[in-house]
């Protein structure tokens, strides 16, 4: 009794140190310093913009994945959803007609919601285990994407470049161009995602997502419509993927049915590195962002340490498995943090 009350009375700083978030932040800072040392012009505007552009897709995918994992699921189909959306976007758009861009965005948005609904029905209402359900649906999206675009390619309207680089759009207003040089569009998309999640997390739905993830049965007994909440989480994930798809098409001006597949593993790993438990109900979506940053810096460091190109897949795969295993092994050693957490609640 005495001991436990002492633990509670520890200063806020102590509590923070023993939280898993603290170690995540420390790792991020270390990675940042190493990258800054290796990359000579790290603090120049140009390379900062380039870094942000390189990191954006993974960050968006990771945040979406984090929402699903917190709700007690896991989405293996996010990568192929991304491919499908780029294919849909480039399938609808015609190069000469700017107005087709709007149609494309509306249709892709509808497809994204549909993907979320189908995943959600499988996971939530029909209660198929999330991993295997989304494994199955990932092949549906892959097949659909291949139908639209058997080989990489396609066309895009010119103003779509604004999702990647506003300067690239010829007849954009001057103030937008100036704005784009200060805040790169990739960053705007990430901020949009953060605001989106901030609003959701302040509503009942946001609380319910945590409740359903930490104990589905208790949430159900408490009168929460767990199936609906799980479906909502899947739809939120799809919308994050939709933002990433906008960025991709803006960058490449084309669609590719096989592009998204490899990203999914990185997104899951980044979520775990960001301190989100794969069992659900724990962690913060913003720290998933930090996890994505850490993994991105790691691949940057690999790039700078002159590892031959062929080793890239191998090294990134190794890092992913070490990161996931490391977080899992580290968790029991973090008991003090867990005890503190329990007393706070």
């Amino acid at each position, binding site marked *: 009794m005495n001991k436990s009350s002492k633990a509670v009375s520890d200063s806020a700083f102590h509590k923070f140190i023993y939280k898993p978030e603290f170690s995540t932040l420390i790792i991020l800072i270390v990675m940042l310093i190493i990258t800054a040392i290796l990359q000579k012009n790290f603090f120049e505007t140009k390379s900062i913009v380039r870094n942000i552009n390189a990191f954006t897709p993974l960050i968006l995918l990771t945040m979406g994945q984090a929402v699903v994992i917190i709700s007690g699921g896991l989405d293996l189909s996010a990568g192929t959803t991304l491919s499908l959306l780029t294919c849909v976007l480039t399938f609808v758009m015609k190069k000469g007609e700017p107005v087709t861009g709007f149609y494309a965005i509306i249709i892709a948005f509808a497809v994204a919601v549909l993907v979320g609904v189908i995943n959600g029905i499988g996971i939530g209402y029909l209660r198929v285990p999330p991993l295997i*359900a989304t494994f199955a649906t990932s092949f549906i999206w892959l*097949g659909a994407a291949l139908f639209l675009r058997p080989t990489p390619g396609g066309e895009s309207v010119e103003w779509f470049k604004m999702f990647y680089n506003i300067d690239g759009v010829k007849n954009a207003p001057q103030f937008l161009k100036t704005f784009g040089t200060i805040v790169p569009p990739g960053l705007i998309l990430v901020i949009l995602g953060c605001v989106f999640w901030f609003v959701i997390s302040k509503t009942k739905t946001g609380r319910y997502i945590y409740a359903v993830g930490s104990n589905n049965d208790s949430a159900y007994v408490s009168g929460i419509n767990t199936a609906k909440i799980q479906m909502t989480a899947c739809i939120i994930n799809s919308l994050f993927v939709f933002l990433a798809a906008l960025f991709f098409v803006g960058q490449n001006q084309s669609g590719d049915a096989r592009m998204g597949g490899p990203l999914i593993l990185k997104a899951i790993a980044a979520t775990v590195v960001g301190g989100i438990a794969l069992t659900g109900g724990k962690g913060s979506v913003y720290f998933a962002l930090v996890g994505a940053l850490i993994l991105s810096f790691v691949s940057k460091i690999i790039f700078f340490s002159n590892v031959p190109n062929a080793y890239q897949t191998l090294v990134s795969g190794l890092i992913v498995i070490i990161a996931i295993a490391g977080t899992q092994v580290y968790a029991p050693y973090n008991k003090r943090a867990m005890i503190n957490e329990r007393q706070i609640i």
Partner: protein
Amino acid sequence: MNRVIISQNNIAYRIYDRYKKLIIALLLIIFLFVFGEVTVSNFLSLGQILLTVKLASFIALFGLCQMIVIASGGSGLDLSVGYTATMTAVFTASIMNGENGNLWMAVLIAISLGITVGLVNGLLTSYVKLPPLVVTLAMANILQGVIDVYTAGRNITGRPSPILRIIAAKSTGIFPNILFILIIVATIVMIILYKTKWGAVLFGVGANETTAYLSGINVKLVRCTAFIITGVLASLMGLLLIGNMGIAFKDMGSNYVMPSIAAAVVGGVPLMGGGGNYIGVILGAIFLQTLTNLLVALGWGDAGKWLGFGILLFILLIVYVRNRRSI
């Protein structure tokens, strides 16, 4: 009189209940062949059926790897089987170099590679308690990386030994030789799984790990062993694949991952673990291969194949593998 009828009904019903999923798989195959014969001409011929069975044998053998992992429970699945096979094929191609004398060396390498991959998978899933799908997905990535590194800047040379060619690609009379391998493997697997202690332990661990633990079974070790066996089988499959194709190339095995899981699900292996009938997996593999043939004949190609597999797997998952709420 009345009671006799009831008991007879009971037996019939019990047989139906026990082999329900096998019967469904068989009906699906027949339906596909009839549908194919109606829509595409010359779909239902002996040559076509034998070709289907030959190609399905490879899926069925990969499905065996999957079934062992799934049966051991813990929501196990192995997404790295195809990549293990590719790695073995690529590594052993130059060692065999088209000579029978080097085959034992290739088999040794295949077994050791399989043990290594399976051991890592098993340790990470059962002892570090990571989700099997995530671990094996990462393992697939790593193996692809190893293959990339090995093949970077050089051609994959070497041919399989003639014995492997005979086993995997040639036919005796009209029957493909791989079919005999499949029958032998199926017999051995059925005996091991249903007639030995190890089979009972494997299914026991899958059905209820707490009960198995309290009965004095080392649950973690059994699951780890299941992964190792799967790794070795997948690795040996690499030898059969190179025997069938005649050469090794970079993604020869990765296309088998999804069908192997689908075959297990179609064949009625419960994904929660603790059960499964290998005959069902073989029927599932034949069904998938027939579906692929039909889609190719209809001119839908790769897109149609993956779309069809995905929708089929999703529907079957909904029908077979629904969680029940515990309260």
